[in-house]
């Protein structure tokens, strides 16, 4: 683990520089520990693929003390040994299944991915459902969860011209990441289907069906099931 300055009241902790479940688990574990030991000194945290941004109250605690607390709580070998065992089997992460209506109607880039990969559309749909994904980060927009990693055969670069309008629930692929757009927004991901589940709801608790560190599986559904679950086929522009 390496600590760098981010800003006047922020330190960023790096646990590696690749996308891997073990590294993501370390980030989560560090976040939970520091939440406990630093408590109200923390203003906010951002957990991402391999890093943890820690924002503290600079009028209440100084950076040297924060660094010492980080070292003391994360670098003690005994606690690491015990916790890493606990965390790989983790009691806290859960598996969330999300329904997706895959079709050319709801997934305008299915044909593009098919053309580029040589796979049939059914093969692409099956490959997307074949893996369990990890939630590596949440950001970009409220409730936007970055999931990884998709099968290399269906990995696809972002569109050269992003869409002005992606409908709520659109399921996309960018490189080896996949995600669901929680709301209508511009976006450049390759769209392959629509999910009827609300990914961000200010009025319900929890606000999101997933958290960083959770595992997600996708399950294909028919158009009728999609509509029954409250899904709507929005605008693609």
């Amino acid at each position, binding site marked *: 683990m390496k600590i*760098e*300055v981010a*800003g006047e009241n922020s330190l960023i902790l790096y646990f590696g*520089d690749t996308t891997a479940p073990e590294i993501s688990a370390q980030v989560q574990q560090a976040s939970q520990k520091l939440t406990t030991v630093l408590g109200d000194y923390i*203003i*906010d945290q951002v957990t991402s*693929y391999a890093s*943890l941004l820690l924002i503290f109250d600079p009028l209440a605690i100084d950076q040297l003390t924060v660094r010492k607390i980080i070292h003391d709580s994360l670098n003690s070998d005994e606690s690491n040994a015990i916790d890493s065992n606990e965390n790989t089997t983790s009691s806290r992460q859960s598996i969330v299944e999300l329904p997706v209506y895959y079709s050319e109607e709801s997934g305008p880039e299915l044909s593009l991915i098919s053309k580029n990969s040589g796979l049939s559309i059914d093969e692409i749909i099956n490959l997307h459902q074949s893996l369990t994904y990890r939630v590596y980060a949440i950001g970009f*927009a409220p409730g936007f969860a970055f999931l990884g990693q998709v099968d290399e055969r269906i990995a696809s670069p972002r569109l050269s011209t992003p869409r002005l309008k992606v409908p709520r629930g659109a399921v996309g692929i960018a490189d080896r990441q996949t995600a669901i757009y929680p709301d209508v927004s511009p976006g450049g991901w390759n769209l392959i289907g629509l999910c009827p589940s609300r990914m961000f709801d200010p009025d319900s608790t929890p606000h999101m069906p997933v958290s*960083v560190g959770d595992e997600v599986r996708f399950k294909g559904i028919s158009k009728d099931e999609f509509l029954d679950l409250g899904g709507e086929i929005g605008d693609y522009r």
Partner: protein
Amino acid sequence: MNSSSNSIQTGFKVIQPGILSLLQDAGRFGKHNIGLTNGGPLDKLSYNWANRLLNNDVNACVIEASIGGLVLESLVDTQIAVTGGDAELSINNQTVASWQTHSIKSGDKIAFGFAQNATRHYFAVKGGFQVEPMFGSCATVAREKLGGLNGSALQAGDYLPCSSVSQAEVTHQSKVSLSDRPNYLGEMILRVVLGYQEAAFSDLEKARFFNSKFTISDKCDRMGFRLTGPEIKTDLKSMLSEGICFGAIQIPADGQPIILLNDRQTIGGYPKIGSILSLDIPKLTQRLPGSVIHFEAISMNDAQQQLHLAHYRYQNTQTTIIKD
């Protein structure tokens, strides 16, 4: 909203929203885990003074009026204060001073002209505007459809509830002395805490960054201010997305810095050379495109000391009572 139609409405009515007027409190914190940004005032010091003049809570909800053009009608007797930018302020077509409190009667019309140099104005009412917080804050972030009245900028006809303060309850008016007000004009030096990917910028590139002048471009909003200047290069080809703190200086492939502000995305994958000292952010956000910027390095320890000193000075600066 907690104002039912059959109760007496006390508050303000928006006659004209102006260029961009947003309800803001100090910001929305502790919600980065679900992707929510901070929002909050672009000029925190002026925001603080507006509430301080009225003895409001430090987190009270005010209007941030950018550039100007905001016109309000009061439906209540109360006291107000306006701080920040330099747009002319009038009450019932009479020009009045900013940086001080004024008594307002029901039916009064308050109008902002347009800013010449300093662009962000803070309009506070006694007790703050009473709107329902979302995720713990009334800060408006239009991109997230959160805060304010319905997640968007003020519109003509909007009703902004606040409590009534009778004239008898107003004991005095107060102002911030001229010498205690921030000066937004003149040379703009923004102090930078080096950090994040600074090691991926060579000494030559850092020297270029700290010894060149940059200009505020016209691509500026509450997410970030894009600057133009000499191209700053980095050897870094790609990186994983990571958390972005307030004031972070992102250097995309074109080498033109972007200073990320209140409504920034919480994560991103462009290299960052460091972050601007928060005390210097209002110098930036008050200014118009074309304004010239220089950067100066400051260590994290010195930055923390500056924050303590600024806090001490602010706490120990008194407002001046104006005799009626």
